[in-house]
């Protein structure tokens, strides 16, 4: 019990200090100097932060769209043809990004892009993000498919519906909670990713985590506290929404 309480305190203390410091006007923030929104104002006035936010959103939207389509298709294949040898290979490939350390994916992709002469930028970031987001979408949708009753599809076929119609009117609506949860997860992961992005970004394309990193590394003012607090609020909201979606049954 004591250990558990200590562990929880250990988890939350740094986050609480960070959020508190974002409202502290002191530049070197060990002493509280009253409540202030000065760092938030600075943040909103910084053109680099806005540019980074724009890049992050462009990437995240593209990544979400591509990985939802690919991931849902993959989950369908994995579920429908579960026993085949092809699906065993398919599953291993989809599982791999979940265990491979990020730095290895980052460096491998960088090498592939350099070897193929692809210029680094937003496009390479999108390609890299899709590669790991697909796995998360596929796993989320697969979980949903596991308690999906395929006799509904057969019933629709018996009633004369073609495949296009079945996909549009039966499969997608019934799988929607899983797909939506996967989409939110992909979006959050893309917005949050630093390591892989760092390797494949190139000089022009700065996303929000890359911006934060350079602010940390090169000693920018405590604007990072404010930015982190905002990011934290957004992530927590997104994950809560995604959990609610995946929990709501049928």
């Amino acid at each position, binding site marked *: *019990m004591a*250990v*558990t309480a200590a*562990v*929880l305190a250990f*988890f*939350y*203390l*740094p*986050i609480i*200090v*960070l959020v508190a*410091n974002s409202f502290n006007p002191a530049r070197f*923030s*060990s002493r509280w100097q009253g409540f202030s929104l000065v760092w938030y104002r600075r943040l909103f006035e910084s053109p680099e932060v806005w540019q980074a936010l724009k890049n992050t959103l462009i990437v995240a939207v593209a990544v979400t769209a591509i990985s939802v*389509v*690919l991931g849902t*298709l*993959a989950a*369908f*294949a994995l579920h429908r*043809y579960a026993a*085949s040898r*092809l*699906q065993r290979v*398919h599953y291993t*490939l*989809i599982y*791999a990004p979940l*265990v*491979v*350390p*990020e*730095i*290895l*994916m980052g*460096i491998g992709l*960088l*090498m*592939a892009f*350099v*070897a193929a002469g692809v210029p680094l930028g937003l496009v390479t970031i999108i*390609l890299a993000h*899709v*590669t790991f987001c*697909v796995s998360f979408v596929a796993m989320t949708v697969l979980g949903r498919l596991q308690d999906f009753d395929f006799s509904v599809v057969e019933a629709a076929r018996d009633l004369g519906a073609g495949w296009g119609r079945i996909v549009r009117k039966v499969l997608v609506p019934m799988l929607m909670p899983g797909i939506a949860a996967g989409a939110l997860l992909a979006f959050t992961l893309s917005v*949050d990713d*630093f*390591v892989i992005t*760092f390797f494949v970004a190139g000089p022009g394309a700065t996303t929000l*985590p890359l911006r*934060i*990193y350079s602010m*940390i590394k090169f000693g920018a003012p405590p604007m*990072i*506290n404010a930015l*982190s607090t905002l*990011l934290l609020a957004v*992530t*927590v909201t997104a994950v809560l929404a995604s959990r609610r979606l995946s929990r709501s049954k049928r």
Partner: protein
Amino acid sequence: MYHCGDLTPKQRAEWLVSLPTLAWLALFLVIPAALIFVLAFRPADPYGGIGAGWTLETVRALWAPSNLAIAVRTLWISLLTTAVCLVLAVPAGYTIARASEKWRNRLLMLVIVPFWTSFLVRVFAWRSLLHPEGPVKALLQAAGLAGPETTLLYNPAAVVLVMVYTFLPFTILPIYAAAEKFDFRIVEAARDLGARPFQAFRKVFLPGISQGLLTAFLVVFIPALGSYIIPDLVGGPSGEMLGSKIAQRVFTDRNLPHASALSAVLVLAVMAPLVAVLALQRKKKRADIIMGESP
């Protein structure tokens, strides 16, 4: 598609829905992984790209003492992190599993929430806590445990601390999951038969949750080996690990073949525990079958 002629319609449909992800992952996962090993044998060109021809020089240079020191440090930091995580996670997982259902869900939520914050932000939070002007040092100084010249940042201890912080939730969850399925009446039986509390814990409870312990070990040890941001931001030169060295080779020295050789070492280091655990599990399964237990 003539070559598909010998496939049944069902197989053709299967290929059709599997092909997009198979092709994508072949292109952006399998080929990059293979390139890590291939490029280690290519020379670097002075512009940060890959030169022509082949060489064994880079692989030979891996045996430099400085590289060996980093490999050894990566290993011990990862092992220590994993050990500390397990020591903290077993009592925490146990407490959560034994709590009433209402409290169990609350405690689980409390463990999961820190996961949701940006990883970079969490590392940054520690960096400001351990900063020379930060609160931790002020506290330690007030308690007489630190002098004015004590540095809390930029050493291996800081790396271990922040790594434990990052990986602990990942350790608690599998241990909790195993403890939740564990039948605690067995512990009571052991106690009734005269086992002391610690004995019952060590000889009955720990073996009972061995699957959870194994999972917890893997989910900490593997990413720990590949750590990059943590040693980079709080490690300093004395806390460098394989991951931060790889990044340094890419971004500072602009030498991709060297980075690739180091990454190949990391790939092998990551594979080793995975293969070991798989082999162990297969052996255990076989033993279970021989002993007549249900698999």
